[in-house]
């Protein structure tokens, strides 16, 4: 603080380098700066003070570390408990028969979830097919074209859609189809519609996020070459964000594949194989597990075992989707500085 800043020194220096300038400058700067600054204590006097501060910092540091670790373990406990229960109870029927036969004509023993696995794949696949183009295009609009009120309104409604309870999406699909095809209708495609309603906002959100991290410099580089906007988006922006978008889609599939409530009212309960989503009821894994538990046979144990095995299968599918999503991102993810 003994030397004034350079801006301060210029005017005084300009007054003249001759005699009188230096004594005149010292009281001026002194009045301004020195009283507010306590004299710096000598180094040795600092030592106990420094140690005290260090100690307190150390204690705080450890305290926070303990709290954070504790919170993590607390969050992890239910997950581990759940995984342990599902694996230990699900292994009983995790066999070849479970994956190769349906429940057709099964009263108690045996039977499998072949029809439910097929149904899950078909219903979720159709939902993805419908939700991805809508979601991605919506995100492109929001991120690349939208301005002002319409953009704000769409963003708001996407947020609202994210919070829709899944049963409401199911009721929507049920009501929409019942209007045209009569009450009591149950179709695989109705489940797909319900699931795509749940999936669209997730896809919009994740795709928007991925488009946002594509650097503006890349768009400008493309524009500067005389490339029109739509081509810049399709040939530069989307390929750059592609791995992220695919990852987001997979995670959103993982999010909806275990939905039960909307499918219970749209696709119904069915014990045979049905691969036509436009014709009749269709079983899926989550509803299968629910139904085996809700209305078991006599004795009930075989039904319960099938339910746990179905839950285990579902968890494994979700896990596989997550792992594939990560691998896709790591393998094909574009490095953006």
């Amino acid at each position: 603080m003994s030397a004034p800043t350079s801006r301060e020194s210029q005017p005084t220096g300009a007054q003249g380098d001759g005699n009188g300038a230096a004594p005149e400058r010292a009281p001026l700067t002194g009045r301004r700066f020195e009283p507010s600054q306590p004299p710096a204590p000598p180094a040795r006097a600092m030592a106990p003070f420094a140690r005290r501060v260090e100690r307190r910092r150390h204690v705080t540091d450890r305290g926070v570390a303990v709290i954070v670790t504790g919170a993590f373990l607390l969050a992890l406990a239910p997950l581990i408990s759940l995984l342990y229960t599902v694996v230990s109870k699900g292994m009983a029927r995790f066999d070849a028969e479970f994956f190769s036969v349906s429940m057709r004509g099964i009263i108690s023993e045996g039977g499998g979830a072949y029809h439910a696995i097929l149904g899950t794949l078909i219903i979720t696949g159709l939902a993805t097919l419908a939700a991805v183009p809508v979601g991605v295009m919506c995100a492109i609009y929001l991120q690349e074209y939208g301005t002002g009120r319409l953009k704000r309104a769409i963003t708001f409604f996407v947020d609202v859609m994210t919070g829709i309870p899944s049963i409401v999406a199911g009721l929507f699909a049920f009501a929409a189809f019942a209007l045209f095809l009569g009450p009591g209708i149950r179709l695989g495609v109705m489940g797909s519609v319900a699931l795509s309603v749940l999936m669209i906002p997730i896809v919009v959100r994740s795709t928007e996020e991925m488009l946002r991290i594509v650097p503006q410099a890349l768009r400008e580089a493309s524009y500067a070459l005389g490339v029109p906007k739509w081509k810049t988006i399709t040939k530069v922006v989307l390929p750059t964000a592609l791995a992220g978008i695919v990852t987001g889609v997979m995670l959103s599939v993982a999010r909806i594949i275990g939905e039960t409530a909307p499918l219970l009212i749209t696709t119904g309960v069915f014990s045979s194989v049905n691969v036509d989503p436009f014709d009749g009821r269709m079983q899926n894994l989550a509803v299968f597990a629910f139904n085996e538990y809700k209305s078991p046979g006599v004795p009930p144990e075989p039904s319960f075992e099938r339910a746990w095995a179905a839950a285990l299968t579902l968890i494994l599918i979700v896990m596989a989707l997550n792992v594939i999503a990560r691998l896709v991102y790591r393998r094909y993810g574009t490095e953006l500085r």
Partner: protein
Amino acid sequence: MTATATAPAMTARAVEVSDLDLYYGAFQAVAGVSMTIEPNKVTALIGSSGCGKSTFLRSLNRMHELTPGARVDGTVKVDGQDIYEDGIDPVAVRRHVGMVFQAPNPFPTMSIYDNVAAGLKLNSRKMKRTDLDDVVERSLRGAHLWDEVKDRLGKPGMGLSGGQQQRLCIARATAVQPEVLLMDEPASALDPIATLAIEDLVRELKASYTIVIVTHNMQQASRASDNTAFFNLEESGKPGRLVEIDTTEKIFSNPREKATEDYVSGRFG
């Protein structure tokens, strides 16, 4: 603005700017700029930060208006054609006035080859593979990058060093054979050796293009440019203005305006 820049014989064009005002919303960034940018010369734009050099540069290929709220008044004529006239397509303008940016920005999903060919491919000009190969090689040679990358044209452009990436961007910009090349501090993110390579390249490229380069580096302006335009900001919040434009030699030795002399000799701020 005669199109079909497929013939190798290119013509650099003069750029005439008159009474150009540039705005960001209500804020006027640049006021009353008039200048003539000579063909086959390197024109350097110098001035302190925030004085509107880059904004002015971006108005020369209608990139300025990409910023939401940005507005332009005045005329910019490239080879006699006002690029802000009604009915002029900004996308078409940018095919004639290319640009190289401050930070190298090769397309991360494309190979070295595809980066250079991007302008031609994305503009959907159907070209024979051999013709495209020729353009890529010529552009990379022009950017002094060919020998370094000829064995790995299929590798991603992001794998190159910073200086190589910037030369790749120059090759990409020249591959579409613009008549004017704008450069926004093209060497500011590079080390001194890569900077000198870019400066050498700039001096060479003026044989084929009209070049406008923004720089904060006074030595760079004096080394690489023929003409220099000095922009200044009277105070913050006021728009930047063109103080003077003259030959680089004159600006750095004997400028007309005192503000210019102060700036080039280091007395500014």
